[in-house]
């Protein structure tokens, strides 16, 4: 095996993966004074961070796992300060708005189902949970452009949205301004535990560091076992449409339609098992568009300027995987489905833990052991 390009002395932590999870961690680690090297595969990689919907979303999260609802609420609460910090450090406005969001319901049984979920979650949580069921009249009062087919909505005042691409740019610029090193276009091919740390072999040579944090999205699946961890994540495709820019009319984000700071209507999304195919299909796009038009009939006249598909990084139960390797101390795997929502937690609480702080209480629920014995494909 070839030697490393550096000695163990000059990098503290290698972060693998430059999506929103890897960048949040790398930025947080750098802020804490670590010497960090970030390795990212490149533009032809699967990159959920560049194709997602941009919601900072609380409602509906944590059904059957109140710890996840709490973790999400903590992150949503940390978002305003996080956005301010990024703006001060980089000048980039991530277009955060957290004035409350809605999930529109088009059928009474959908309302009933969501109401039942809400009751269960509120019971499990045993703490204040400000989510409400609204009837159609209440929804139309807040958003007069709502269509007649909307029978009601789930309202959560903690919900919001941000620009995912501006977030990536702010994190990267922040990381860079702190002196973080990035090797773009460096796919990690193998990681070998060594005395004192890890050798990380990439397309451009091998790097050594005492700590390695795997944040490679779908790439974690094959990387994690090399350092005594597991990450049984699988792709789940979402398709999205965006319109031309129009004057603002929709201040509140909804689960499937939001208007960005620059006036674009972003319309989502599908949940499909399509393997590693991140393309689009007319059938899904037209279904998504039709649902959006029922929510907001004025969308019918708008021009669609772009559509795309992107692959979610899904664990079998949809919850994050946060784990430190016991077999090879110094190795971590960090992956989740809601990387925008959870960015402040990743840059904050998780970084403190990686650097040796106490494990945040909810993390006991997010270990990959919960999948042991479960058949994963």
């Amino acid at each position: 095996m070839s030697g490393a390009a550096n000695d163990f002395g000059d990098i503290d932590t290698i972060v693998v993966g430059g999506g929103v999870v890897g960048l949040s961690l790398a930025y947080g680690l750098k802020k804490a004074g670590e010497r960090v090297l970030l390795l990212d595969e490149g533009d032809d990689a699967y990159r959920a961070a560049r194709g997602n919907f941009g919601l900072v979303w609380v409602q509906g999260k944590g059904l059957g796992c109140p710890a996840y609802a709490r973790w999400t609420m903590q992150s949503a609460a940390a978002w305003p300060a996080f956005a301010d910090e990024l703006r001060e450090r980089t000048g980039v406005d991530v277009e955060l708005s957290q004035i409350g969001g809605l999930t529109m319901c088009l059928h009474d049984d959908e309302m009933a189902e969501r109401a039942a979920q809400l009751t269960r979650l509120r019971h499990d949580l045993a703490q204040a949970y400000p989510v409400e069921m609204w009837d159609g009249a209440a929804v139309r009062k807040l958003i007069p452009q709502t269509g007649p087919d909307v029978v009601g909505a789930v309202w959560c005042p903690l919900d919001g949205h941000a620009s995912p691409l501006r977030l990536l740019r702010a994190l990267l610029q922040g990381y860079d301004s702190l002196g973080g090193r990035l090797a773009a276009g460096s796919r990690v091919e193998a990681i070998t535990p060594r005395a004192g740390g890890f050798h990380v072999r990439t397309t451009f040579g091998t790097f050594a560091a005492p700590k390695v944090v795997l944040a490679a999205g779908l790439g974690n699946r094959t990387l994690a076992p090399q350092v005594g961890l597991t990450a049984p994540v699988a792709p789940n495709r979402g398709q999205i449409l965006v319109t031309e820019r129009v004057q603002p009319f929709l201040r509140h984000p909804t689960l499937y339609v939001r208007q960005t700071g620059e006036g674009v209507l972003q319309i989502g999304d599908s949940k499909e098992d399509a393997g590693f195919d991140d393309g689009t299909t007319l059938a899904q796009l037209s279904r998504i568009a039709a649902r959006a038009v029922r929510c907001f009939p004025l969308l019918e006249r708008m021009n669609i300027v772009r559509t795309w598909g992107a692959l979610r990084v899904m664990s079998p139960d949809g919850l994050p995987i946060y784990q430190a390797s016991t077999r090879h101390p110094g190795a971590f795997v960090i992956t989740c489905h809601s990387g925008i929502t959870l960015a402040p937690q990743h840059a904050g609480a998780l970084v403190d833990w990686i650097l040796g702080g106490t494990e945040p209480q909810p993390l006991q629920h997010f270990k990959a052991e919960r999948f042991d014995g479960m058949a994963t494909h």
Partner: protein
Amino acid sequence: MAWQRIEDGSDAVPVRLVVEGRPVQARAGDTVAAAMLAVGVAVFRETPVSGAPRAPLCMMGVCFDCLVEVDGRPNVQACMTPVAEGMQICLQHGARRPEGA
């Protein structure tokens, strides 16, 4: 400098348009963009984000810098739309309205 037609001596059929409330003479076969440039319209729109002025750039449907409102329909590519008798053309300031015919 204003745009000028190349007079080829042909007797093209005149077509009457209204641009920002002003009667304008065009010729059958013109695109809306060509007709507007020929009568000296220099700024077609302002961009939604920065408000910077824009005029047709490519004249072949690629750049979307020529967007105008045609007969109440916003964000129409002037360079891809043939003129028609009585067409009403308005300039757009900033983003289009969300509603609109």
